[in-house]
């Protein structure tokens, strides 16, 4: 199996070499679930800076985990010049670095966040949503009236690289998800130039059942088997 439709399987260290200084990086996950922990640890180890992190939240950094959990580590390690997220309240460093002017922060309502990614991945010029109308989220955005109702125009969001987390993969890169780990991962798989999927298992000798596949393999460029880190092995 060497043709192009068969996706390369790499170590996390090798895979994250594709993340360069200045890259925009989408990271899947909501709270603990669906986070590519092994890829993140490799990216922390690699130390690449000046990243634009695009993720729903920045997980945790607190007294119990001063070093951060998951992609929260990228913030603690000051590898991000900008974070685009919907909620950062559980990572004290995200708040601090933003308050001190050391990191840019763009907060987006969660539903608009995923729609912006969908627009990026599905060739749409934007989406009209009623969410945020009449709030400060409206500021600086185009508001368009359709049939008497006001909507905010939310613009597409894309990234250089998406680090996503799946459950099972086959060698064609097709993915399934598990539990609440699906969240933003399928949308992010559509919206980045390079998609690296960390998975629990790679089925070597047969394709996944086509009916069960959530993310088609054409969207996935590199497969990485999850490691045995604390959270990788618990999710």
């Amino acid at each position, binding site marked *: 199996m060497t043709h192009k439709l068969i996706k390369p399987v790499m170590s996390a260290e090798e895979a994250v070499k594709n993340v360069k200084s200045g890259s925009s990086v989408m990271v899947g996950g909501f709270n603990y679930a669906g986070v590519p922990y092994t890829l993140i640890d490799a990216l922390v180890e690699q130390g690449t800076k000046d990243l634009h992190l695009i993720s729903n939240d920045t997980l945790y950094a607190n007294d119990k985990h001063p070093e951060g959990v998951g992609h929260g580590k990228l913030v603690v390690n000051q590898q991000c010049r900008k974070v685009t997220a919907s909620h950062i309240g559980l990572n004290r460093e995200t708040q601090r670095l933003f308050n001190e002017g050391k990191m840019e922060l763009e907060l987006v309502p*969660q*539903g608009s966040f995923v729609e912006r990614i969908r627009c990026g991945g599905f060739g749409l010029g934007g989406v009209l949503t009623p969410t*945020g109308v009449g709030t400060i989220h409206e500021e600086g955005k185009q508001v368009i009236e359709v049939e008497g109702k006001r909507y905010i125009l939310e613009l597409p969001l894309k990234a250089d690289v998406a680090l996503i987390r799946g459950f099972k993969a086959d060698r064609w890169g097709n993915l399934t998800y598990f539990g609440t780990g699906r969240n933003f*991962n399928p949308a992010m798989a559509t919206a980045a130039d390079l998609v690296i999927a960390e998975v629990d298992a790679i089925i070597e000798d047969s394709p996944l059942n086509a009916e069960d596949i959530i993310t088609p393999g054409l969207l996935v460029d590199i497969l990485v088997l999850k490691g045995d880190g604390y959270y990788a092995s618990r999710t």
Partner: protein
Amino acid sequence: MLPVLDEEVVRHRIAKRIALDLEDGAVVNLGIGIPTLVSDYVPEGVSVLIQTENGVVGAGPKPEKEDLRFIGAGGRCVSLLPGSSLVASDTSFGLIRGGHLDATVLGALEVDSHGNLANWMIPGKMVPGMGGAMDLVTGAKTVYVATTHVDKKGRPKLVKECTLPLTGAEVAGVVVTEFCVVRKTDGKMVLTEIAPEVTLEQLKEHTTMDFEVSPDLCPMKGID
């Protein structure tokens, strides 16, 4: 002065009162804090489908054994009840914005005379992000606001006009505190229930929100 009630009594009273409003078959999203407790008080004979914004439709109570692969919107582990489904975030927020949710229950920093709700930031102090709150207040058919009547310094939370950045404009449908229930009716905030510990005068003293008193004002339900 308002009577001082035990903090836990307050939290559970508010949650229980909101739970009594839920109809059989309702699809409901519960925010963090007091709203999370609502599911403990759903009356017998009433089944509700609890939706979490990260993709559970049909969430059950916290399981005995923690499993980080099944997380609720508040970061607590959840179980799946029979009939539940798991969806991605785009579908989850499609359900929320698309009018498929009967109710959402959220906390408040301020809620005002127009039903404006502020619950996501205090400029310069606390900027955790709005998460799914702006979508929830926009999309759910009824927005329940679960809040203590005054803040820790004794200042009213039911205010004339919100001063904090809004989560949503004119979105609050029902406001429940430990002392009263206020329902938005024909664009006006109307006091419909009052707790036994307070008089109407006391309540007015600690409420700057403009509200009318329902002709059918009755004792707050759900208090044993």
